[in-house]
């Protein structure tokens, strides 16, 4: 999206938003500082790192995995993750035979607390229109070609349930711990348009060398 030229025009969205905010703060309906906090939260605190922690924990803790699949809202709550659009979370598990894909055809519902705000492709008309009728074609757009024998399950989140895909743990990660694993888990894999890859050479080395440090830092970025 190139919104730059919009910003210049007085009727562009930037100007309209500024006018709206002025009106609403003037009327006492909103507070600019509260808006600042919301923007900051979604730019810096809530994001796919939350979901990655959940996935990594489910990969390494079989009991947690069970709780996650049974009641995802409660299970992510154990990690301090909660918030708007997170009241009815459902985790769906990929297996070698079943691949899950999440879409919202009618708007762009998304599990904010675990994945943050949705990327442009998730909100795109191309994705919203074709994910339900041509999921294999959509996955090919992402460079993911699944074997014919794999069943694809598409989840159209039309009501209040919000879906988190629990991707398959990649081979070659048996020695990695929870924090290292979390670094591998991408947003796309938790929506179901990608698989999680084992780290290649360099990254694997990096993961090893930073094993201790990373643990502490990421824990402090919790929402």
């Amino acid at each position, binding site marked *: 999206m190139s919104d730059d030229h919009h910003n210049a025009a007085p009727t562009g*969205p930037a100007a309209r938003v500024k006018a709206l905010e002025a009106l609403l703060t003037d009327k006492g*309906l909103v507070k600019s500082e509260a808006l600042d906090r919301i923007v900051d939260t979604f730019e810096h605190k809530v994001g796919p790192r939350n979901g990655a922690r959940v996935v990594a924990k489910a990969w390494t803790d079989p009991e947690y995995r069970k709780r996650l699949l049974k009641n995802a809202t409660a299970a992510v709550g154990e990690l301090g993750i909660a918030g708007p659009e997170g009241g009815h979370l459902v985790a769906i598990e990929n297996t070698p035979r079943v691949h899950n894909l999440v879409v919202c055809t009618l708007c762009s519902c998304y599990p904010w607390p675990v994945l943050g705000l949705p990327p442009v492709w998730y909100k795109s008309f191309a994705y919203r229109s074709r994910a339900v*009728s041509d999921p294999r074609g959509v996955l090919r757009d992402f460079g993911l070609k699944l074997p014919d*024998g794999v069943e694809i399950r*598409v989840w159209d989140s*039309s009501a209040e349930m919000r879906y988190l895909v629990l991707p398959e743990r990649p081979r070659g990660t048996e020695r990695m711990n929870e924090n290292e694993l979390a670094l591998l888990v991408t947003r796309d894999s938790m929506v179901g348009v990608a698989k999680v890859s084992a780290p290649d050479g360099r990254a694997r080395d990096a993961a090893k060398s930073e094993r201790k440090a990373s643990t502490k830092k990421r824990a402090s970025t919790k929402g």
Partner: protein
Amino acid sequence: MNGVHDMGGMDGFGPVVHEDDEPVFHAEWEGRVYALVGSALRAIDVNVDEFRHAIERIAPAQYLASSYYERWLSALETLLVERGATGMRARDAVASRAETPRRARFTPGDRVRARNLNPAGHTRMPRYVRGKSGVIRRDWGVFVFPDSNAHHAGTRPQHVYCVEFAARELWGKPANIRERLFIDLCDEYLEPADKLRKTAKPKARNRTR
């Protein structure tokens, strides 16, 4: 409403384009709109269904020409103008009245058909499942009914089910047999599939004219 927003199964939008290292917001105003919507709607008592419907009411050509947050902005403006007409006071809180939930008509394993409903207002049953048969997989419990709640016409609390459809049922024979669709549908959207399907019959006549 059968709006352009109901795009499941549509062709013509091209391939999905993926942006690497995408920022959360692509411009500062996007973040402000996101934050404003959440805050302002609460202040003027607009529920999420009403907000979604305001987005759906954007003229189709404009809807398709706008980005996601541009649509949020337009919908917010629309709602503020509409509320402004009533002095920005919250509407009668019909939605907050305690209503008795309808009892669950279906249980997991039941075969159901999505009804052929074409409401003029808000609905969360996309066109592509209407008239199609599937199986109840989960009962998620009781939720507000979006079709009435969006219009402040009561919450009509009812069960929402996860319904499974075979891709072939939705898209016809060429669809891959290894593709299934799961969608959460309100009790009122569904009817039992096993009862004989009553089609509206044109009277048997010999000629049309």
